[in-house]
């Protein structure tokens, strides 16, 4: 057994720095690269892509990335865990296989795929059997949006990925899997942790939580002494250096920018935190109030003392459904009286929408530069503001109504208050809203499938 395992975080979300995973591979020693591609509603986008093209439906960026790093991964035995498979895990694996062929690496490594997360074809059967898939936030039963569902997947945890690694997979591709599992699985595989060693499973989960948002744990978006964070242009993404006893050190490659220190790790630990006593994953329930942090030298923070609780009997389900349309229009008003002019324009706009008989579920006006982020907490603005951006958003079920709204923004330029500009982008776009429906279902309903084969 190795003394320590270095798991590198390469993507904080689908759309993060394209070269970050490459720099993690090339910048120094790592054993694993974990890549999180799936935000809450990403699956519905992939579902739509696959409906148009049966070969699509996964994170396309993953394939050119693999093409770039595969030779090094194979040569240095760096293994990859990625939830890049979306709704077409096999398709993604085939594309990687093809890339391997072009590189002359066919048969030189194994690809593992994890499926079984997609419950879309089973939704009616589950509802019929009394599994209501109630919205975890609102408590509403899924039947209220049944006809508008676009995707439904459970979050699988680390264990199916562990099975793939145990069978020798160098690249493990999953559909919907927890981002923490992508880090935990390599640790379970390497250190042989048991399914009930809740403390260690929680440690690996928390390591995953820290590195799953990319550079947000190595100096990005960090408030603490932000001015003095060095060289963010060259920011190093985080690495979890994990030990068999469950302790780990968060660090980054040498000769990279950014900063890993205790205050920064605290910020990331609290990011998107609910009840800190119960961070629930399919693999365990981690207690964030037991985490101990220690400065372990430049750009090194040691994490230890973590206590975990048994996993629950449920898996979280991520359902996406169509929830109407929205559009946001903006105009910029300049000094003098910028705020007053923007307010006058909003009043005129609303009066015209009213006259046109356009009704929306919601209409929201914000004044960027005055109060868009901090609302009333921002206090009264200076009368001398150089400019204010008027930002009006509407949401409703009828696409035509939302579309009509988008045609009322530009006319304000010639028919409203003076000193207005900022309309270079044309009419606002109407966006279909795909909303997120979190639910729970019994674990016993789900059987993950793991297949490992030669590339």
């Amino acid at each position, binding site marked *: 057994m190795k003394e320590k395992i270095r798991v590198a975080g390469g993507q904080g979300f689908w759309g993060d720095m394209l070269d970050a995973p490459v720099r993690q591979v090339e910048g120094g020693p790592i054993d694993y690269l974990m890549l999180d591609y799936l935000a809450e509603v990403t699956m519905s986008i992939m579902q739509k892509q696959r409906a148009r093209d049966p070969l699509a439906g996964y994170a396309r960026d993953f394939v050119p990335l693999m093409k770039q790093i595969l030779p090094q991964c194979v040569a240095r035995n760096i293994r990859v865990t990625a939830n890049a498979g979306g709704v077409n895990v096999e398709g993604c694996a085939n594309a990687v296989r093809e890339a391997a062929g072009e590189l002359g690496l066919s048969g030189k490594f194994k690809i593992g795929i994890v499926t079984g997360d997609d419950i879309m074809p089973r939704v009616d059967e589950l509802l019929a059997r009394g599994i209501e898939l109630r919205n975890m936030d609102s408590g509403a039963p899924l039947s209220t949006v049944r006809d508008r569902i676009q995707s439904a997947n459970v979050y699988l945890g680390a264990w199916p990925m562990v099975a793939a690694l145990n069978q020798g997979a160098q690249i493990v591709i999953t559909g919907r899997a927890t981002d923490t599992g992508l880090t935990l699985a390599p640790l379970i595989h390497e250190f042989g942790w048991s399914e009930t060693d809740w403390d260690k499973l929680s440690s690996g989960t928390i390591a995953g939580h820290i590195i799953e948002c990319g550079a947000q744990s190595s100096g990005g978006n960090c408030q603490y002494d932000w001015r003095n964070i060095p060289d963010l242009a060259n920011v190093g993404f985080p690495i979890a250096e994990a030990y068999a006893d469950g302790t780990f050190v968060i660090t980054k490659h040498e000769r990279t920018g950014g900063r890993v220190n205790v205050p920064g790790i605290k910020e990331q630990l609290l*990011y998107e935190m609910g009840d800190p006593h119960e961070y629930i994953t399919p693999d365990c329930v981690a207690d964030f109030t037991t985490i101990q942090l220690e400065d372990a030298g430049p750009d090194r923070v040691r994490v230890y003392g973590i206590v975990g609780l048994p996993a629950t009997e449920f898996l979280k389900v991520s359902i996406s459904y169509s929830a109407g349309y929205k559009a946001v229009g903006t105009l910029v008003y300049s000094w003098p009286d910028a705020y007053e002019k923007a307010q006058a324009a909003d009043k005129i706009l609303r009066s015209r929408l009213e006259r046109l008989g356009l009704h929306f579920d919601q209409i929201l006006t914000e004044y960027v530069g005055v109060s868009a*982020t901090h609302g*009333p*907490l921002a206090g009264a603005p200076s009368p001398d503001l150089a400019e204010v951006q008027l930002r009006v958003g509407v949401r409703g079920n009828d696409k035509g109504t939302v579309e009509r709204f988008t045609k009322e923004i530009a006319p304000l330029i010639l028919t409203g208050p003076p000193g207005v500009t900022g309309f270079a982008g044309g009419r606002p776009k109407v966006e279909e809203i795909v909303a997120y429906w979190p639910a729970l279902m019994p674990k016993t309903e789900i059987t993950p499938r793991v297949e490992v084969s030669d590339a």
Partner: protein
Amino acid sequence: MQIQLTQLAHARSGDKGDTANVGLIALKDDYYPLLVREVTAERVKKHFTGICKGSVERFELSNLFALNFLLHESLGGGGTLSLMTDAQGKTFSTALLRMKIDLSDDEARTLGLD
């Protein structure tokens, strides 16, 4: 005397649906008891009047000298439903740091804040 939280803490915020979370971290471990005493759920709810439409929950993480707040019904429906510029609640952290809290001159002196 009054002191603004920017002098006592740093913070990071995010979202879970229509709920914003704010993690508030003492800049020095010594400041933590003051945060626990003054930055109550009630105070935070009042601070976010007009922004947070639901309840506020507070959790203590004394191991990290930090508090975690959940501000329910704060993000205009949350996720893709929200029309807000800050639909993910990313700036709730700095919005909380605007809060001013009371402490005695003695306490301020002890903490090196005078």
